[in-house]
């Protein structure tokens, strides 16, 4: 396992190097600074999505789920919509992006905790019901957002629509510091929870029997998931299947339940997939399609394959 981790790190290093230099022309200082920023953003997003998905899967005891399926990202869009509704489009566009992001992250956490707290209390053990609720809620929230936008001003619908597609290629640099800070704090919290996560992965009854309080750990994990999803959504917009793809690749490479291994491993895999993929698309193949669309297709397909294998 240690060897594999080292190997993955080397691959990630190569990907990063390749991303920085392949096809670069002109002023090296400019190119490196420009691409370096994007690289950093990709890494942040990768870790945020990978870790949020991993601990979410541990919490739910199901390896074919991602928080995005539960509609966390839809909630983020609704937050933006509400902001536009309350403030109006000109004021909305005038808010500094950092403030907007912090506000939206807070809103998202509150919303997610309230929503899922309610569902968990009502139906603590019925996970499938919870998930279906999440999926339907995300449709509801998306429709509500669309509705809201059209009611405010049918012509400004495009403002929100612009934020709806994940775009790895142009990340707002102003957000990087805040996003990095939040991710770091969550990352430390998750790393400190790694042994507890091992136990939580045994399911609510056994975990409780071993002294890990159910509702409290669930809330803590959900809070961390909400924060990380908020960060990644704020940076690049919604991506549904990336987390799924990354965690399951990790499970294949590292057949263990120990989060002390899984956490660094998913982070590395996510970095490789995102940076390698973006590098390939952007610098090698010169494709116009956003990486997110490719990831949706590949990730979705791998989900179905997984499901078939799981049910066999």
């Amino acid at each position, binding site marked *: 396992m240690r060897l594999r981790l080292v190997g993955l790190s080397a691959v990630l290093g190569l990907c990063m190097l390749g991303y920085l230099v392949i096809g670069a022309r002109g002023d090296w200082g400019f190119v490196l600074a420009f691409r370096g920023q994007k690289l950093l953003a990709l890494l942040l997003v990768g870790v945020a999505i990978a870790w949020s998905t991993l601990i979410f899967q541990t919490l739910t005891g199901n390896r074919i789920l991602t928080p995005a399926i539960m509609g966390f990202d839809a909630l983020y869009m609704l937050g933006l919509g509400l902001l536009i509704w309350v403030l109006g489009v000109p004021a909305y566009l005038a808010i500094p992006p950092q403030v907007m992001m912090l506000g939206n992250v807070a809103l998202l956490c509150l919303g997610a905790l309230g929503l899922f707290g309610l569902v968990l209390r009502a139906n603590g053990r019925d996970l499938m019901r919870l998930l279906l609720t999440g999926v339907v809620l995300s449709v509801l929230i998306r429709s509500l957002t669309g*509705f809201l936008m059209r009611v405010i001003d049918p012509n400004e619908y495009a403002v929100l629509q612009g934020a709806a597609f994940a775009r790895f290629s142009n990340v707002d640099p102003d957000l990087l510091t805040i996003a990095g800070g939040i991710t770091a704090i969550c990352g430390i919290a998750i790393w400190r929870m790694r042994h507890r996560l091992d136990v939580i992965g045994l399911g609510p009854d056994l975990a409780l029997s071993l002294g890990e309080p159910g509702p409290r750990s669930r809330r803590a994990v959900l809070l961390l998931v909400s924060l990380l999803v908020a960060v990644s959504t704020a940076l690049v917009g919604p991506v549904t299947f990336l987390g799924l793809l990354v965690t399951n690749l990790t499970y294949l490479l590292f057949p263990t339940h120990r989060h002390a291994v899984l956490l660094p491993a998913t982070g590395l895999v996510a970095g490789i997939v995102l940076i390698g993929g973006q590098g390939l698309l952007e610098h090698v193949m010169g494709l116009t399609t956003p990486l997110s669309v490719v990831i949706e297709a590949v990730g979705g397909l791998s989900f179905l394959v997984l499901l078939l294998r799981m049910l066999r």
Partner: protein
Amino acid sequence: MRSGLSLLAVALLALVSLGVGAIDLWPATLAEIWPVLRDSRLPRTCAALLTGASLAVAGQIMQQIARNRFVDPMTSGTGQGAALGILLAVLVMPAAPIGVQMGMASLTALAASLGFFALVRRVPPTQPLLIPLVGLIYGGVIWAGTTFVAYQTDLLQFVEIWMNGEFSGVMRGRYELLWLAGLAAALIYVVADQFSILGLGDAVSVNLGLNHRQIVLTGLVMISVVAGLTVVTVGLIPFVGLVVPNLVSQSTGDNMRRALPATALMGGALVLGADLLGRLVIHPFEIPAGTVIGIVGAGLFLWLLYGARGHAA
């Protein structure tokens, strides 16, 4: 009694729908308003009714086949498959008549439905909610594939129109194929009893000598035709096929011969009502019926999932 009330409600809705629009009909003579009615209002009203009725029936049939109350063709791949089909048709043979494109859409929709059933056949009966979940993600995958193709060929705008059902573009001469969808839904009534039996499970079907494969295929063809026609004409409308059969099942039961007419009626009323609401809220602008249904339908679905648990789950 109940069906009489529903009929009355649909008639009322239709009447209001005929009266609402950008052009004020009051006061004017029949001769003056007839062109507006004939070219725009009547087609729009019919389109909403036909779409709602056929989608609701398609949902009912799909639920009987899957023996699961939470599936819906529009959210589990069939609708997305239809969109992919039209996109491919537009790409490969842009000059082909609309009928051919619809045929293509129905074919891919059928393939997508077959794929869905091949997937969920392995889901154990102990996990009933896994089936709609798989469907939603399966639909999402096809949707992502469609987006990819559309992105590479600069057709994203078209796809977005297909994915968001609305009736503002419906006019005389541009919706008539929907009558075919209505016809497909009506034809399924002929074999309603077979679908009632299908819903009782494999053992009962075999015991009663049902030609399982044939009846399932008939159902899937019908669903796919409805999906292809509605997606091309008005775009994808979610939840109708999911919510309406559940509501009907609670009041009327699962005898298809009784349930199907009620389903069609209620589906038509739901979509027409949603379209009407979308036209009225920010008049003279419009909110797509698909968006309205997304809210109303999801709300109803959650209510089914929690409120009406005894019946639905």
